[in-house]
């Protein structure tokens, strides 16, 4: 009940905050604007609409996840709202998990609205949907869950500026992690190979959540892969939240 109350409160605060609507507005604008981009290209008109629309969902979804995620805990400490919550019979991990799930619910709502705008754009332009679109959007959401957990972790012990820096940095590295692993494996220096391997194991491999090329070309997607990627995202997010909870458990609220 306590985690649920904190999650619901976080969700309610977020959906009543008008800043998120402006980000959502631009996201929908870009999804709709994919038609213009498609017009400027030669051939593969509908593929470009699908590709640009999915990229818009991913880009704005991640922006919202980082933007709200880094302030999720920090803002509570800075504004001292945490004082009245941490002085209730609520464990700090419950607060953290509640905040996280509240933000996930907000992100799920945003992704849903963007997805609806995306499918409407495809239909209006006479394009075709395919079986890979929904798994692609779902894994984009899972990727956002991992990035939100990263932002939450950094928000527990650093300033928003540093949190944003670390989260954006790790998100970019995470998106290229398989390339980094490949470079390490090709290296003739064993140390670099080992370091690349360790970095790949420790850092989030966000490329696993990228089904956008398959969805754009209408290729088949295996459900086992989607389940595996979802499991990986959930496990990685849970591990990040456990670390965040341990740090948060022992910190003083200044």
């Amino acid at each position, binding site marked *: 009940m306590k985690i649920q*109350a904190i999650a619901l*409160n976080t969700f309610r605060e977020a959906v009543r905050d008008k800043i998120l609507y402006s980000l959502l507005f631009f996201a929908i604008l870009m999804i709709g604007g994919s038609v213009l981009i498609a017009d400027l290209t030669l051939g593969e008109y509908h593929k470009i609409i699908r590709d640009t629309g999915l990229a818009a969902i991913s880009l704005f979804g991640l922006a919202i996840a980082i933007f709200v995620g880094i302030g999720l805990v920090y803002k509570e400490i800075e504004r001292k709202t945490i004082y009245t919550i941490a002085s*209730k*019979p*609520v464990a700090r991990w419950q607060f953290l998990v509640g905040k996280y799930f509240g933000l996930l619910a907000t992100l799920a709502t945003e992704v849903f609205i963007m997805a609806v705008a995306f499918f409407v754009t495809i239909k209006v332009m006479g394009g075709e949907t395919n079986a890979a679109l929904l798994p692609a959007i779902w894994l984009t959401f899972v990727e956002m869950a991992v990035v939100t957990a990263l932002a939450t972790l950094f928000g527990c012990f650093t300033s928003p500026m540093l949190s944003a820096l670390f989260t954006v940095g790790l998100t970019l590295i995470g998106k290229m992690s398989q390339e980094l692993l490949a470079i390490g494996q090709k290296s003739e220096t064993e140390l670099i190979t080992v370091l690349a391997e360790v970095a790949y194991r420790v850092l989030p491999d966000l490329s696993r959540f990228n089904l956008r090329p398959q969805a754009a070309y209408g290729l088949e997607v295996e459900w086992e892969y989607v389940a595996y990627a979802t499991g990986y995202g959930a496990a990685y997010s849970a591990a990040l939240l456990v670390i965040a909870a341990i740090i948060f458990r022992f910190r003083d609220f200044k």
Partner: protein
Amino acid sequence: MSEPAIRTEGLRKVYRTGFLRRSFVGLHGLDLEIPRGEVFGFIGPNGSGKTTTQKLLMGLNFPTAGKGWLLGAPLGDREIMGRVGFLPERPYFYDYLTATEFLHFYGQLHGIDKGTRLRRIDELLPLVHMERARHVQLRKFSKGMLQRVGIAQALINEPDLVILDEPASGLDPMGRLLIRDIVRRLRSKGVTVFLSSHVLSDVEQVCDRVGIIVGGKLQQVGTVEELVGQTMSAVEVVVEGLVAAEDAAVDDGFPVSLHRTTPRGHHVFEAPDHDAARAVVREALARGAQLVSYLPRRETLEQYFMDEAASMEKQEREEAAR
């Protein structure tokens, strides 16, 4: 015998600040015992350790050394917080919640069922004179309204111990009166109140005992009478119709000189004791003046606090210089 509401033994907090992690002692070994049902006033200048003490008590900060108990449970025990109410200084709450949603939320954090929450909200909003604002979002509240709704959240769980940090902050005289009434009402129900305040006249009026903290050290604890004493500091005599003789000051022939003249033309004398005051009255009456008031004055907590704080801070500076 029941455990004290608050007990601390050598509670100490050292903060590390800045890049070089310089240490700063926020609280030096606090030993304090507050029995159940007492209203305890905690006063001290800014930066004296009042808020640090409260943060340690509420589990918001961790002590560097020492121990403490709330209602018999060690500090940091989450379950006992269900019997504690807390209002921090200058509270900030969630902007987009209405007063009712806000109180429901804090009730849920206490694990209170919906029926009880509804009953408590219907009791608390009128208590803090906020029933008209029950469906207004908190971002539209004034500072005083936030303070009132903050007090309501501190009482949502019908606590046995209430810790209030500057509850009168931002409140108008009516609001301050309301706080005093609430504190008296809590005392009549046997609730322990730990009240930190800069408004010393409020502390003087409602607190059973007072603790004075300066420089992170608890300097004095006692009842207001014990601290300021029952001794009289002066007797104020006010007379009207006093006319000066030709070529003489109005207070010529009086045992004490005139203290001031009021805008209404009353003459005010401050005599050091009753004998001198009586002599002032006799002289005034002999000159055909009338007695308006005769008021023995006791030292107030505010005067005492100002004197003590100044001397303690001076002492601290001297010790630091050595």
